[in-house]
């Protein structure tokens, strides 16, 4: 029994890392007042770039960096169109996803089936020896440890530093932030870019660590789930962990039932569950959050210009 729980826990964490990283990134972007629906596209490009760099150089650090930078580079397209040209943010994000998937499909074709760098799990000394919890949390990929740190770090920067104050100000009321002397365009560009780095990183986790290898369908909607999780965790990076764990937990259950060939729930229903549950969570959060003062950044999705 306990073994099963540890097994499920381990896989749950393992399966939630990408969503967690992407969620943190999107929270940062949205806190700055910009909606970037291109997460799925940035993730898949990050996955491809990470895998390709690893394949070419054999260097895992370069591979990780390439993944993150590719996501960041793609996000700058979003920044240019939404901030400079003030294009519709929803549409632009969709275009970014289409572009990302197209690029991945096109550029990744020769890499299908190749074996690249593999970033393996490694047990953290001492911590991993904690019974059960250690096994679940501290025998993971370095990416997971990175995510453990990045979540709280993002929270700290966002709520305890001047940079965070500026970021939130730009997302809440860009005109007021501008009047207070904040450079709105620069702040938003950075917020989008950092979000892109996180998405790219999340993608590279998939191709380097989670399921090493390259497949153009490997993100499987995780980018979209991350965007939904942003709403679930009310734009708070600390809560992103729970949102991601929800997704990871369902994926783990799927593995568990497959591995043990217990057939209580049909496989296809299990496969649907992460998506259905994400929708359920959205309904719950939206309908319960109506009466409270909305947690969403007030200027989310609103382009800013002094002379419009």
């Amino acid at each position, binding site marked *: 029994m306990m073994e099963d729980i540890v097994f499920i826990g381990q896989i749950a964490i393992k399966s939630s890392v990408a969503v967690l990283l992407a969620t943190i990134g999107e929270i940062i972007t949205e806190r700055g007042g910009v909606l970037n629906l291109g997460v799925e596209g940035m993730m898949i490009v990050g996955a491809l770039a990470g895998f390709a760099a690893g394949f070419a150089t054999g260097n895992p650090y370069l591979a990780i960096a390439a993944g993150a930078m590719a996501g960041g580079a793609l996000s700058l*397209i979003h920044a240019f169109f939404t901030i400079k040209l003030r294009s519709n943010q929803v549409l632009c994000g969709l275009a970014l996803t*289409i572009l990302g998937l197209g690029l991945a499909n096109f550029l990744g074709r020769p890499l299908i089936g190749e074996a690249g760098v593999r970033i393996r799990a490694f047990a953290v000394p001492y911590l991993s020896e904690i019974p059960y919890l250690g096994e679940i949390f501290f025998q993971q990929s370095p990416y997971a440890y990175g995510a453990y740190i990045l979540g709280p770090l993002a929270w700290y920067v966002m709520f305890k530093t001047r940079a965070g104050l500026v970021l939130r100000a730009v997302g809440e009321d860009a005109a007021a932030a501008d009047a207070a002397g904040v450079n709105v365009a620069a702040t938003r560009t950075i917020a989008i870019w950092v979000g892109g780095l996180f998405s790219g990183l999340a993608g590279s986790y998939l191709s380097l660590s989670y399921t090493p290898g390259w497949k153009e369908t490997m993100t499987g909607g995780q980018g979209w789930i991350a*965007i939904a999780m942003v709403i679930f965790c009310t734009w708070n990076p600390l809560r992103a962990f729970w949102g991601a764990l929800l997704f990871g937990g369902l994926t783990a259950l799927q593995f568990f039932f497959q591995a043990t060939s217990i057939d209580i729930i049909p496989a296809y229903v299990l496969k*649907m569950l992460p998506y259905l549950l994400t929708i359920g969570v959205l309904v719950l959060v939206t309908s319960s959050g109506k009466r409270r003062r909305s947690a969403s950044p007030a200027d989310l999705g609103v382009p800013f210009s002094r002379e419009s």
Partner: protein
Amino acid sequence: MIRLVKKSEVTRYSGLNSVAIAGFIAFGTGCIIFGLLGVNPLTAYTVMFKGVFGSFHSFSEVLVKATPLTFTGLAVAVAAVMMLWNIGAEGQLVWGGIFAAGTALFLLPEAQPYMLIPAVLVTAAFGGMLWALIPGVLKARFQVNEILTTLLLNYVAIIYMEHLFYGPWRDPAGFGFPGTAQLPEAAHLLRFLGTRIHLGFPLAMLCAVGLFFLLNKSSWGYKVRVIGKEQKAASYAGFNVTGKTLAVMAISGALAGMAGMAEVCGIHYRLQTGLAVGYGYDGIIVAWLAGLNPLFVPLTAVLLGALFVGGEQLQSVLGLPSTISLILEAALLFGLFAGKAMQQYRLVFIRSDSIPERSPAGRPE
């Protein structure tokens, strides 16, 4: 004095200009990609052009592709006019296909064409409608963001469809091939002139015209447009936003469902992989390139169809990956943004004795 300023009003043909700019940018992007691949862009574009316009048959393939694209483009457009984002046309298309195949294979397998074809049409539209009503109800009742719900439901629909043709609906005589049995011939849509152009094509054109009149000439369409443009004005005027949300999502889903029916009964003759190839997402591009005008949707659908057929030609003639058309497609959309931004600015001459009579639009002093 000459200055670059924001336009206060968009000129009449600005939509067309935007599309021209979009096309130009996509063209340029293509040149760069072909260049990077070491192919003369001129050669590549010639191949694409010949592949599309080279023969009657090749152009007929464009219209074949334009058929589902028109349906999904209309589906996206009708929702977008009310500022609803239906990113779920893909899933609704899948359900249209499931319902169409189910009707033909299991519900009315013995029926005559005059009976079965309308039945397939109605059930497919109904299937897409039901699937679209899930996010519709969630939006109308709980204000749940429809972008995410429509999109996430795509994955669910595809998983279910795969379950069907890998499992209970798999063709028993198909040697393990993932797909249903072939539909009875009575369910096959009529084809024209020895090509693969089928009944779905004129049907799609009819839907475009019908939707145009509904949106632009009827009182219902007037209300939908008001809601889309200015929600506060709509509730001030007492329009029923909830009801319209449901109705628009239902229409949108039904149109996407028809796309699924067109593919299943017009092209594949069975439910199989290759039904969900992204027409639902392409519909977004079709709709916005058409400026959400139902009458322009068939034109942009043909444009996109030509891009796909051209891409396939690149693969068969030059051995280039056909997925290049996916990138060109995204470039078209980004080009449209650039075009729109360029449309908003223009060079003006300011006469120094012009006196302001009114404050600029939307800027009460």
